[in-house]
């Protein structure tokens, strides 16, 4: 964009005039002692994490039999949680990579926190396949490692194995991207801590900064690597959830086997990811007083993405429904009628109203800028997207091809605790991040400052010819 900026162009960071102010605002919480509010929040999430640990221990000790699964519904809560968390993990990389390629300046304030969210969400997701194995100590069998087990080998035809590759690739690239983006900030914090005589802190950040010196050469390498990683990460945004969708779509189960699944899952993942971004950022900007960096304009842009992706998800729901009818296949038609009006009708309509109808109120500018309402809607989106996966998975299974095998599924307390506990795992990580690492990308926000007040124009807006 250079120095020529339209007078009507949105300015993202306007209430801060100095670079030093930004460094101070972002670094201070890292250097200070944790405040009471943080301790309380962290303690609560740690408690919930203990619930997770307890429920998982019980599952592994006693076996998968502690869950509510039956012969007909052999996949339910566990895989729902898995897909839910992978989905949450999509917004971060979209913001850091795709929005970078699209030159969206507003990503600068929010990329750090959302990338962190991505990584923690993928960690949560990764737990579930391991738990579901029942014998997690055999988790290494996921990998095509040379072994002495004879013909026992991973099944390359299985989309579940593709998941292993897709998610581990995604996780690695996201982690590297996230870490790399923090290095310049680590350098700044290291130097600040040194000046303040914080010996241990400055040592730790010196290690983390890996000798960042802020020289021209370092910066030019940094920018090149960022772009290469952004280009690598962009297809990954699409591939991960496409592969996840194939866990279902490669089957011949009506309601699972449908060709639109890959892009539809990706749209849903971005949607749910942005829902979670709203939830977290609203809390963060309030608790850390980051309103000058994560402004209402940022929240408005996020809300616009939420409408777009929510409507895309709605379009996909309707397409599926319509094509089920259009196919003329009795199984397809039945499964969709059953989804909406069968025994799990309530789950379907929770999904539909939370994902398609609620976000539509973001069409109003006032609501996009109202943080209380946005927060409530974001919670609805999180609920709706969890139910989307539940609906897809359970309603397609519970009425088997033989009516004698029809069954209902009810989760046991163990499964419910694992789901609740996974939020503990997520928030424990997130609060640790929010306390000990820079939650906003300091140097990228700095690039948004100091635009010329009034660029020299050859014409004035509003002036005829």
């Amino acid at each position, binding site marked *: 964009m250079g120095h020529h900026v339209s007078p009507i162009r949105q300015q993202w960071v306007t209430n801060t005039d100095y670079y030093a102010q930004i460094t101070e605002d972002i670094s201070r919480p890292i250097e200070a002692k944790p405040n009471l509010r943080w301790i309380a929040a962290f303690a609560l999430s740690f408690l919930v994490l203990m619930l997770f640990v307890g429920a998982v221990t019980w599952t592994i000790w006693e076996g998968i039999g502690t869950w509510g699964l039956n012969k007909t519904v052999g996949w339910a809560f566990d895989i729902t949680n898995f897909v839910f968390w992978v989905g949450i993990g999509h917004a971060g990389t979209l913001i850091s990579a795709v929005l970078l390629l699209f030159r969206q300046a507003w990503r600068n304030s929010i990329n750090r926190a959302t990338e962190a969210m991505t990584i923690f969400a993928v960690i949560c997701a990764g737990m579930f396949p391991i738990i579901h194995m029942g014998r997690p100590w055999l988790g290494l069998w996921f990998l095509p490692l040379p072994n002495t087990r004879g013909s026992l080998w991973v099944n390359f035809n299985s989309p579940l194995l593709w998941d292993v590759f897709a998610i581990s690739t995604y996780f690695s690239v996201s982690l590297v991207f996230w870490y790399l983006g923090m290095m310049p900030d680590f350098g700044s914090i290291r130097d600040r801590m040194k000046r303040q005589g914080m010996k241990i802190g400055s040592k730790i950040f010196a290690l983390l900064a890996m000798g960042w010196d802020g020289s021209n050469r370092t910066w030019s390498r940094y920018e090149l690597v960022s772009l290469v990683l952004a280009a690598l990460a962009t297809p990954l945004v699409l591939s991960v959830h496409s592969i996840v969708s194939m866990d279902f779509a*490669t089957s011949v189960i009506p309601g699972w086997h449908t060709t639109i699944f890959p892009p539809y899952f990706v749209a849903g993942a971005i949607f749910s990811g942005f829902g979670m971004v709203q939830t977290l950022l609203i809390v963060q900007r309030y608790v850390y007083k980051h309103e000058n960096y994560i402004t209402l304009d940022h929240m408005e842009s996020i809300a616009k993405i939420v409408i777009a992706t929510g409507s895309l998800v709605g379009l996909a729901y309707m397409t599926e429904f319509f094509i089920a009818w259009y196919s003329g296949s009795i199984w397809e038609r039945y499964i969709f009628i059953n989804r909406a009006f069968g025994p799990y009708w309530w789950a379907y309509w929770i999904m539909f109203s939370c994902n398609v109808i609620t976000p539509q109120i973001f069409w109003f500018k006032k609501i996009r800028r109202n943080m209380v309402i946005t927060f409530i809607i974001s919670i609805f989106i999180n609920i709706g997207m969890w139910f989307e996966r539940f609906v897809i998975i359970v309603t397609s299974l519970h009425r088997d091809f033989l009516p004698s095998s029809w069954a209902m599924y009810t989760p046991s307390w163990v499964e419910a605790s694992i789901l609740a506990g996974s939020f503990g795992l997520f928030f424990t990580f997130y609060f640790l991040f929010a306390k000990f690492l820079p939650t906003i990308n300091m140097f990228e926000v700095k690039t948004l400052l100091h635009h010329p007040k009034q660029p020299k124009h050859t014409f004035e807006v509003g002036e005829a010819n």
Partner: protein
Amino acid sequence: MAHGKHFTQEELTERLVIPQKIRRTIYGAIGLGLVLLIFGLLTAKAPSGHVDHDTHDTHSALVDNSSLHKTGGQDHDQHEDKEHGHDDHGEHAEEAHGGGHGHGPQHTITKYTSFFANFLLNNLYFLTLAMGAMFFVAVHQIGNSGWHTAIKRVPEAFTMWLPVAIVGLAVVAIFGNQLYDWLAVPEGADALIDKKRAYLNLTGWVIRGIIFLGGWYLAARVLRRFSLREDELGGVSFFKKSNGVAAGFIVFFGFTYVLFSIDWVKSLEPHWFSTMFGVYFFAGTMATVSAVMGLFVHFLRRLGYMAYVNDAHVHDLFKYAFGFSIFWGYIFIAQYLLIWYSNLPEETMYYDTRFEYYHFWFGLKITLCFIVPFLGFMTRNAKRIPKMFVPIGILMICGHWVDLFLMIMPGSVGEHWHFGLTEIGMFVTFAGLFALVVLTVMSKANMVARNHPYLEESVHHSTGAV
């Protein structure tokens, strides 16, 4: 690079005058196209029922494959099937589809069928350009994009092709029963089509067509009128009003483009269904229109216009071409892989027909729509240097034609596809008309949206290091 140069209001005021040479070339192309077309038509023969043995064998093998699957057979070798694949394919197809009808269209194929199919193809081809351009304009409008302002009049002019497309599709509709099984086959003859008649019927089809095309054209007109009024009056009010229209259009477009692709393309094979189809149609649209816009802008710059457009704009357009062709590849493989993997006969039949009679075209499609742009546009310079982007762009243009050919022909003419003078002639005629319409529309207004609030950003656009 124009970066840093200031443009005065005089420099930003320019009208396109179509040079005589170009005008003559276009008329010549249209004339030549028509001659080829007429000659092709005169020499056309009614398709014979003959199928050569090689393809017949493969055909039976594939049909066998799906019918066996249906009766429970799973892991079997295709080569084995080839050996005993000499039975009459009709019988097998009947088993396979359950609907009582085999591969290929059920309507009578006359020597004009392929003409109408070809006419439909070209109408859709240029309609996708107009609609892709419309989507481009609308998305950049609501995305607050600055960079595209300098080239905005090009996609705007593309959208003004819509009236021609509407006339063309109306003609197709009149002769619809030449192409669409569900229009040609009487009620009661095909159980599966009968199940869909609530949607696939003449009245509904025509009404939907009017709503879709009318709505798109209305939105295109309004956006263009706002844009032109802004040239005269300035101010940001037109820009702000355009936001609402663009947002409304995108929502309308999302739903209608999916249904449109079903109505006009997918329903050529009314037994087959795929939820992905609309997305696939959209992906091809966007990849092609990006390349065509890039070539058009390059062409206008070569003529000496648009001094305020620099390599960065062209670069960005071909970035889109690159990105969307990857997206096309992704959508293609996702649809194909899922159908292949599940191996359900009601879905695989779509690819069966294509593998049997269109094997060459299938490979050509993947090459031109994905492999060429993917490898070709990978580097930065390829998107900036005409020696690279012109040939790659032209190959992409051909690729979209092949893609539509593969979507349309198997359902309308079955195995009797034809490629020759008629096809080339018709495409050349349409391309000439399209160029004429777009250039004429462009000549009616200033070449650049000179009072657009983001124009200053756009004329100083730079992609930076990448």
